[in-house]
């Protein structure tokens, strides 16, 4: 599992590298682009996702101590928080769609940096889209694990699937911990003064 996560780090690392380079080239567009993102929704999602990491950690702990009902409960709570994140993300994407801010032939943006803001939004959709895809995969994995926990398949001697899916879920959380400041926060302040 850890080896797989290492490959995942490089997978997102390539996209983050593209983000960094374009940021160096077009700082103004980055500043304008990040203003387009809703910091309240992003912040809310950050809290939700870190909260789901907490419930996931508690689910693993319950599996370790053999508290089977608590394991199922914490796993269900984790899935609910993950679903909340995806729903909020859906509304963020929907707003972008309505504003014609999705890169492509229908892209519309006022301002001298429009072409480069399109690059920023392309990276935004690439990074958050891949992250959301990982969330969907994680959600499906957790559904199976929850079912197995419900069938009392795990014990303090053998709870490996719970632990591994937990590692994956925490990894997805870490990706968001980096995406949130990079996309929503870092270049916002330069527009204020």
């Amino acid at each position, binding site marked *: 599992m*850890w*080896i797989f*996560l*290492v490959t995942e*780090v*490089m997978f997102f*690392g*390539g996209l*983050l*590298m593209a983000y*960094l*380079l374009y940021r*160096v*080239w077009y700082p103004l567009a980055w500043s304008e682009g990040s203003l387009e993102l809703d*910091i309240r929704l992003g*912040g809310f999602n*950050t*809290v939700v996702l*870190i*909260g789901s*990491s*907490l419930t*996931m*950690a*508690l689910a693993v*702990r319950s599996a*370790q*101590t053999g508290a089977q009902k608590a394991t199922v409960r914490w796993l269900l709570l984790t899935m609910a928080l993950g679903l909340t994140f995806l729903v909020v993300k859906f509304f963020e994407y929907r707003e972008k769609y309505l504003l014609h801010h999705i890169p492509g032939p229908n892209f519309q943006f006022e301002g001298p940096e429009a072409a480069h803001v399109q690059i920023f939004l392309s990276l935004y959709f690439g990074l958050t889209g891949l992250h959301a895809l990982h969330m969907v995969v994680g959600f499906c994995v957790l559904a199976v694990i929850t079912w197995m926990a419900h069938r009392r398949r795990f014990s*303090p*001697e*053998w*709870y*490996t699937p719970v*632990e591994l899916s*937990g*590692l994956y879920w*925490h*990894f997805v*959380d*870490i990706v968001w*911990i*980096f995406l*949130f*400041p*990079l996309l*929503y*926060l*870092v*270049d*916002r*302040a*330069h527009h*204020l*003064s």
Partner: protein
Amino acid sequence: MSGHVSPKTTYYAIFGALMVLTAITVTIAFINLGPLNFPVALGIAILKATLVILFFMHVKYSSQLTKLICGTAFFFLFVLFGLTLSDYLSRGWFVAPGGTAAAGTRVTIGPPAPIAEPAGQTESDTEPQTAPER
């Protein structure tokens, strides 16, 4: 397998710390620190990620092998960022005589020169005049 069981209070404390750090990074986003905004936000993100890795993912209590593999990921991430940025950021620091600072960053390749047609292209003065006659 029976790994290390952390007390619940550890998880809640880590969660609290992560929330506080999130609040700090959001607050700082509204303060213009000039070039410092980016490193501060990134530093807080690294701190948060470290807390998640050490405590939620139990790396603090894991074997040396797990720690090594986890470290490998960030080592190669650092190599990727470090080598790429040391190239792109340093371009233009030194310009050789007769050279240009923008040479590597954006290479523009113009359209290919129009191929001169032998018949009916009298206005083209670049037509080859040395075509051998039979």
